[in-house]
């Protein structure tokens, strides 16, 4: 590769960092104070720099596309970050076909969300701070996907966690929001410990942390045999990291709380990019995970269970953002299900389509919230369709996509996941059932969300109704772009079965990723459950349409499932309260920790450790009684002591220098 291209990854990475510096340092200096930059200026700067990254990402993408090489990549070697005692970690960036795709998503959707934010955050204080965080997030996220070794990936991994913390707690004067940020950081840290341990184990076994080296070493059968005893441990440790960042059971609890951040943040960080980091990591290390069927099975089960678990909670929520948050947890579960059955490509495919439609849905919900003067409770909405035609239209597309209605993007990726779970060697047939169930739930709660928001009776207060307005073009433009992607993005991954009818349309994504993330052959008939791919496809389409339609129509008049089915009340209450998981964690983790810490500080340290010392001290106290001169404040005594000291020192210096 020529030199111009080899510096592009670094420039893509640094561009948002420059934006961060301008908004965080230069503008406050210019205006002599914080919170004085206008939204247009701050947003313009931030958008410019992430947009610049997007343009450069396009150039790299085109370069990769035009390359004849089997596994093309563009690399920047910056400098040696660490190099000591066998631990060699260069600061090295690499864009190959997998990270290239992710870079496109991050910078592309990132740019749209920056644009949207200019309008959405227009009347807020401290927009400069907001946009600087947003740029800093993009920097870290890009580092996460471009870093060519695990410590650099971890750098980005923790960095996005920090930005997430800062942005969730953006309105920090409210204790609840500050708490949500803190919770996100701490829960993520639990996962990060797993990630660290995974890295340490890998280093012990392979002596390197470079992604390229790890993946190429795993082609060597002697290496594979050598690490066989610990490979499950490595994969599971890394997966613990993924459950933290990608909000899976049991560490998903931070994501719903994270909704207290500004809505564009939820769209960018908590839907499209950061939360998919775990999926990226597994896809990136797929040769490693391939070696441990046990770890894969754990991943598949965790994913499927999370998908179902979060899907059921989403049904009973009234906060529009909470519905989307649980939906995100659920969809991420789908991605892990795909990883777990060995369909890494499909996981990346769903990651991409999910980024399109979930960013769209979040931004749409932001537009709704904006229109309703900050109201997030869907029971106080309804009938918004005629007031917000653009928002409704685009969100409808997003909803159809997430529900898996043919031929919107979600249909293709979700279908591929479902079918993979019965057609691949690692597939697990009952997880297919769980997947289908979750797909039905997804369509159902999405329909309910649309119905409660846009259809049915108008339940807004008079004031809110009075102020209802469609969002400005700066907000609807990103919605339309994302709607287009959400509608058509699936055609990047047309299944062969269907592609043949469409004039031999190839599965573009599969071909694109093949060199980095090889796919297992997907037979036409499932091997775990003998169902033809076409049957699964038609079946899941029917289910999606049926449940979406049910969701929309059933909730035109009623608000809750419990109003439809009598006798479901107790169960519904459990769902409304999210299975009481937060309460449970409070009891079994937070409270004991608090008690241990109180015991350590108040009892152990004061009574035992210090008690022993004080007992000793009391005996010595008499000897130390001379120390009381300190209390007298007698200047002459000090003077005498100092004189003595100085004499000693002068004598010493004299002795040394002569």
């Amino acid at each position: 590769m020529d030199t111009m291209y080899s510096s592009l990854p670094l420039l893509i990475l640094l561009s948002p960092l420059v934006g961060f510096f301008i908004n965080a340092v230069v503008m406050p200096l210019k205006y002599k104070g914080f919170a004085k930059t206008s939204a247009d200026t701050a947003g313009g700067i931030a958008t410019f720099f992430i947009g610049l990254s997007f343009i450069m990402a396009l150039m790299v993408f085109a370069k990769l596309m035009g390359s004849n090489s089997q596994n093309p990549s563009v690399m920047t070697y910056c400098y040696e970050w660490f190099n000591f005692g066998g631990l060699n970690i260069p600061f090295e960036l690499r864009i190959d076909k997998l990270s290239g795709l992710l870079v496109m998503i991050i910078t592309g959707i990132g740019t749209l969300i920056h644009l949207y934010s200019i309008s959405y955050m227009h009347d807020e204080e401290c927009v400069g701070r907001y946009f600087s965080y947003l740029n800093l997030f993009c920097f870290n996220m890009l580092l996460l996907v471009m870093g060519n070794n695990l410590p650099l990936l971890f750098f980005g991994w923790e960095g996005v966690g920090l930005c997430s913390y800062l942005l969730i707690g953006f309105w920090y004067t409210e204790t609840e929001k500050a708490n949500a940020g803190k919770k996100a950081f701490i829960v993520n840290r639990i996962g990060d410990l797993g990630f660290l341990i995974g890295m340490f184990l890998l280093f012990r076994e392979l002596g390197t942390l470079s992604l390229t080296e790890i993946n190429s070493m795993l082609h060597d059968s002697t290496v594979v045999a050598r690490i066989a005893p610990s490979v499950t441990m490595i994969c599971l440790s890394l997966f613990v990291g993924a459950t933290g960042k990608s909000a899976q059971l049991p560490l998903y609890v931070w994501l719903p709380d994270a909704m207290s951040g500004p809505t564009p943040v939820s769209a960018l960080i908590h839907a499209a990019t950061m939360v998919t980091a775990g999926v990226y990591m597994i896809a990136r290390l797929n040769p490693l995970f391939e070696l441990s069927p046990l770890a894969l099975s754990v991943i598949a089960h965790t994913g499927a269970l999370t998908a179902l678990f979060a899907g059921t909670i989403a049904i009973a929520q009234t906060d529009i953002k909470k519905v989307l948050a649980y939906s995100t947890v659920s969809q991420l579960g789908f991605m892990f299900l795909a990883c777990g059955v060995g369909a890494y490509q499909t996981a990346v495919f769903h990651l991409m389509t999910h980024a399109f439609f979930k960013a769209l849905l979040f931004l749409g919900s932001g537009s709704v919230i904006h229109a309703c003067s900050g109201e997030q409770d869907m029971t106080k909405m309804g009938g918004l369709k005629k007031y917000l035609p653009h928002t409704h239209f685009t969100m409808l597309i997003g909803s159809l996509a997430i529900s898996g209605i043919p031929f919107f993007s979600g249909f293709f990726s979700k279908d591929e996941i479902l079918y993979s779970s019965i057609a691949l060697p690692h597939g697990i047939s009952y997880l297919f059932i769980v997947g289908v169930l979750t797909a039905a739930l997804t369509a159902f709660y999405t329909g309910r969300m649309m119905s409660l928001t846009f259809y049915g009776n108008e339940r807004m207060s008079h004031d809110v109704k009075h102020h209802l307005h469609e969002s400005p073009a700066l907000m609807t433009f990103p919605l339309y772009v994302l709607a287009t992607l959400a509608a058509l993005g699936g055609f990047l991954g047309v299944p062969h079965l269907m592609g043949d009818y469409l004039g031999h349309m190839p599965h573009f994504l599969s071909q694109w990723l093949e060199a980095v993330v090889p796919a297992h052959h997907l037979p036409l008939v499932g091997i775990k459950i003998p169902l033809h791919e076409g049957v699964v496809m038609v079946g899941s389409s029917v289910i999606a349409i049926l449940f979406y339609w049910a969701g929309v129509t059933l909730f035109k008049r009623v608000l809750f499932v419990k109003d439809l089915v009598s006798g479901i009340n107790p169960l519904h209450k459990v769902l409304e309260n999210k299975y009481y998981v937060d309460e449970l964690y409070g009891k079994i983790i937070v409270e004991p920790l608090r008690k241990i810490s109180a015991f350590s500080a108040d009892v152990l340290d004061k009574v035992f450790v210090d008690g022993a010392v004080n007992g000793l001290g009391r005996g010595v106290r008499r000897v130390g009684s001379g120390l009381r001169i300190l209390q007298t404040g007698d200047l002459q005594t000090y003077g005498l002591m100092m004189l003595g000291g100085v004499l000693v020192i002068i004598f010493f210096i004299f002795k040394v220098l002569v």
Partner: protein
Amino acid sequence: MISTTCLLSWMIFSPMLFAVIAILTPSFLENKLRTLTLIQTLVNAVLAVVLYVRFDGYSAAPQLIHFVSWLPEWGINYIVAIDGLSLPLVMLTAFVSPIAILATWPHGELKKEKFFVSLIMALQTGMYGTFLAHDLFLFYFFWEVVLIPMFFMIGIWGGKDRIYATIKFFIYTMVGSLLMLVAIFWLIHESTHLPGANPSASFEVLGQLKFAFDGSSLKTVFSSPQTYLFLAFALAFVIKVPMVPFHTWLPDAHVQAPTVGSVFLAAVLLKLGTYGLMRIAIPFFPQAAFYFSEMFILLGVIGIIYGAFCALNQTDFKKLVAYSSVSHMGYIVVGLFSFQKIAIAGSLYQMVNHGISAGGLFMIVGFLYERLHTRNLQEFGGLAKVVPMMAIAFMIMTLSSVALPGSNGFVGEFPILLGAFQVHPIYVLFAGTGVILGAIYALKAYQMVMLGPKTRNDLDHLHDLNAREITAMIVLTVFVFGIGFFPKTFFGKSDATLDSYANQVIYKVGHP
């Protein structure tokens, strides 16, 4: 201008010369004493830069040796030298000192200021001397020199319970020091058995001494002289670190000490302990150190977790930071006793990094105390709106403290954990919980001070950082991210020494 041979001695004694100037300052100039201190620390910082430039990073041997015969008949000489182990710590001392002076300048009057600034200067002489001495007795001399100014600083300018804290500090350190002194004389005596038959306390000579050690059973261990020598030194050093269960002097000393004392205590003084372990206890008695290594690692891990739990429960901001020091210093003990090259290097880095982050955090505590005269976390809240500069500075120090990648904290903790994991995975797993607990108490403290609603009405009139406080914080910030992004630039000159040090120690363990 400065001849290379005396450069190190200049660094050690120039603070003393300034102290003499300070004492001789006529009373009408006494309001300039703080400026004098600043000049003094800056002079040393300049000397340190000269030193850094002249230091040959490719050599593992002690450099810029200054030898003066002192008490040759006792084998005691004035030998100062520098190598890759002391270089980062000397640089840390040289840069933290002016920052500490800048950041902790009290807004009001200070009683007996002349004496106070002389103590600060004497303290620096002691610290530089300890890091640079290459004669064991000289090391001990400077080690004790450090004690005295600290003792007075807490005892005279301290808070309400200063006498209790002073006595505790004094007794703790004296117990360790006395045992060390006995061990030193033993070592000097042993040195006469070497060929040449002259007593010597120089590191170079003592490094050649070999003491019998038989680790086959508990009985043989405790009849080996190496065991007693090692434990005598190690005890003196771990008290200073401080390692649990010898740590309770630290929270009291910190809470009572004036801010500048706390900053020096956290940033530099604690490192004397780990430096001693690294320089003397481990390489001189490698087999004994290795035999007891698991015990020390266990205590280090307990320190990490226990310190974090204690920190979590504090409402006194200063005590919280003090316990966080106990926790973070535990990593260094784990790293040093893992006998792994990567972890040993990480330990040295962590010494500097903890100096920066803990020093910075104590400065933040000082800023708040200077303005609000309280350290009670419950009396703060929502300050980020009122004092945004302070909020940013505090956030950066918090990130450094929780070892976020890209900050200096990560550069120390990551190699320690990675290296130690290779031999003690289970201990490291537990040590790793410090990563989580550290985030909990650090973010808790940050939130209680900066976020949430305001708890007091008078907070609105709080002044944000002034120019000198901002300067101090900017310099620290440069170090936090400079080291975080470019560790090789800052620590690269230590590579050769660290490499040969680790090789020798590991070799000696296997070849008694």
